């Protein structure tokens, strides 16, 4: 009796809640940023890519940096959900839904931002009509679509038992949402056969998502590495990108964990221990990414080939040095130092470290794209001065910020509709503990 009362309390605490004033303001801010971005994109469509500051040399600017950032963040779905699950890491269970929501939000906007980068998006369909299977861009399109689909399924399957619970609370969810829940999973009765089929499907998805996740970011790295340019001509790029992706993904989960925990008072479910363990994961990923960074930069720095010297000097001590060292220190070195101490793995320091990692990672993506394009092997000759440097136009900033806001809006909407922490899994765990 006490057990069922406790269970009911868990359900009540984990049900999705309507936004209060702060939530509405948050959504309003995100929508406003998105609208500014939509207007900027209207201008880009109306006047063409000339409204951006991308020119002959820097033809991939902040949009592609953002694309790489989104793809990187989306990998967290595979890390928390699949890798943890297959490795038997049970403490990660309350974080799986957060990870999947972030993955879905990020992958949607990775797809959108790549279309934004196109001068004539109305010709996008030509990619499918005339795309060449030999092109890494085609591989990227295929693998992003696949990853998006797997992420959706991985979000959907574990939701089925929770939807059954949500359907019990028609008054609380309202008629619209109730109808939506019914459409999604009114057929779920939770019997043994259904449970077995669902469990099998989740296991298959967990296995499938890992190679696809590795592929998505490796292929993204190959978009650069298969292009012969200073800084991109690297065999280390696939592993370097994946290490960085797991780091930024884990960082974003930590940030989301703290926000949801504080906002929805989920201290009982997302505990200090979760932060401590995620801190350990994060420090490991930071060290791994640091290792790949050393690999990526030390050997070219040691050789200092004439053709790459301009790029490397610009990065280490030139115009990009402040961003470069900021990204390295903020995104990798300082988190390692902070997280090595137990006090650094408490919720608030972890939240700050998570933000540092995510911000550092965003600038790192910018540094992967832009400095290389400003240092081609063939020196720039007889070009307008503005071609020789790059700073995004307000339209680029607005669209990029709108894409970030859009991804957060998707996550916000998902956490409004669905439970942030899997209810049924938490109940099962509670019953097991009670036994």
């Amino acid at each position, binding site marked *: 009796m006490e057990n069922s009362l406790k269970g009911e309390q868990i359900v009540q605490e984990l049900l999705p809640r309507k936004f209060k004033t702060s939530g509405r303001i948050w959504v309003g801010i995100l929508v406003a940023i998105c609208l500014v971005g939509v207007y900027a994109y209207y201008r880009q469509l109306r006047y063409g890519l000339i409204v951006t500051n991308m020119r002959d040399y820097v033809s991939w600017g902040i949009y592609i940096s953002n694309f790489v950032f989104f793809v990187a963040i989306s990998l967290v779905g595979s890390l928390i959900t699949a890798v943890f699950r297959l490795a038997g890491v049970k403490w990660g269970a309350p974080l799986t839904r957060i990870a999947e929501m972030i993955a879905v939000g990020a992958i949607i906007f990775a797809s959108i931002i790549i279309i934004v980068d196109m001068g004539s998006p109305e010709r996008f369909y030509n990619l499918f009509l005339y795309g*060449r299977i*030999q092109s890494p861009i085609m591989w990227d399109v295929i693998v992003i679509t*696949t990853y998006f*689909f797997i992420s959706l399924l991985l979000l959907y399957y574990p939701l089925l038992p929770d939807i059954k619970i949500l359907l019990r609370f028609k008054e609380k969810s309202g008629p619209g949402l109730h109808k939506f829940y019914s459409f999604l999973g009114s057929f779920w*009765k939770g019997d043994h*056969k259904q449970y077995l089929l669902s469990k099998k*499907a989740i296991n298959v998805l967990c296995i499938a998502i890992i190679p696809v996740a590795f592929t998505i970011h490796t292929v993204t790295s190959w978009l650069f590495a298969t292009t012969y340019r200073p800084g991109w001509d690297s065999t280390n790029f696939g592993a370097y990108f994946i290490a960085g992706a797991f780091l930024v993904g884990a960082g974003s989960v930590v940030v989301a964990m703290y926000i949801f925990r504080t906002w929805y008072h989920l201290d009982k479910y997302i505990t200090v221990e979760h932060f401590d363990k995620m801190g350990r994961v994060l420090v490991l990923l930071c060290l791994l990414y640091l290792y790949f960074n050393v690999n990526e930069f030390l050997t070219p720095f040691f050789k200092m080939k004439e053709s790459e010297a301009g790029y490397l000097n610009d990065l280490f001590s030139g115009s990009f040095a402040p961003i470069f060292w900021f990204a390295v220190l903020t995104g990798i070195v300082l988190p390692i130092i902070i997280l090595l101490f137990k006090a650094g793995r408490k919720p608030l320091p972890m939240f700050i470290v998570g933000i540092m990692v995510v911000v550092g990672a965003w600038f790192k993506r910018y540094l992967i794209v832009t400095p290389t394009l400003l240092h081609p092997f063939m020196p720039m000759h007889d070009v307008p001065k503005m071609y020789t440097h790059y700073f995004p136009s307000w339209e680029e900033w607005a669209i990029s910020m709108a894409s970030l806001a859009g991804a957060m809006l998707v996550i916000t909407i998902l956490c409004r509709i669905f439970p942030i922490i899997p209810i049924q899994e938490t109940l099962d765990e509670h019953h097991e503990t009670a036994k």
Partner: protein
Amino acid sequence: MNTMKLLNKIVAGSIAVMLLISGNKGFSQGAEKASLSITLSYYEVNNQLPHISALVKTKVDGRFKPAGGIPLKLFLNKDSAGTVIGKVVTNENGQAFAFIPPSLKNEWKSSKTHTFLASFDGDKRYESAKADLTVAKAKIEISTADKTITAKVFQLTDTTWVPVKGVDVKFGVRRLGADLPVNETPTFTTDSTGQASADFKRDSIPGDAKGNIVLVAKVEDNEQFGNIAVEKTVPWGAKFVPVNTFDERTLFATRSKAPIWLIVVSSGIILAVWITLILLVQNIFRIKKLGQETE
């Protein structure tokens, strides 16, 4: 008093030294013109239309350097209006070229030796200059047999061509940058019959699609004959088979020409993953069906 004398001497000496130092350039401004050196060369390839090359140099800081933009008048045999070969201007390398025009055909046929004259009238920078070159008419005949090349050098005497002894001949294969010697011996000298022979030792040299290469026998910078050469095409080279991947299955071809291995591997992966995903979607319908049956 002695001090004053010494001071005067120092002042006078200093003024004299300063004048010497500054005067060297100061007095030469616009007063002296540089002299030019003109060198003429005669060329004839395959017994066809001969041409003249003029190389003009000037001394700058003790070294000869090419003088560009120098207008030259070229004449055949004598400096007169009827024997003008042409007016040329030297390029940045100090060189200028001119073919002997058809209008001088009779003049050309009239003699077995000819003198070429070049003259520069002088301008603000350079003194006037002249040069001449006398050549005797000669020709080379080339023949090949069993990878041996034979050249015969003849000189025109009155109306007949007679073999010339003791002329240095070079044998080579025409390549893009220069002529490649046919073997390790740089030059061959003609015998009393005017003949010189060389063995061809460049068997593996790439030729055209049929293996053709162009042999050349030449006399270079000869005091008597100038530069004469003759060419012959022989199928002694290796056949060049161009590697053209156009319209073949490569990573850089069009979409319809993707490599088979890539199509198989990528299709295999895509099918394996998407069939799994389709089955997983189908699985949802199975779960749905089970739920409806339970109801």
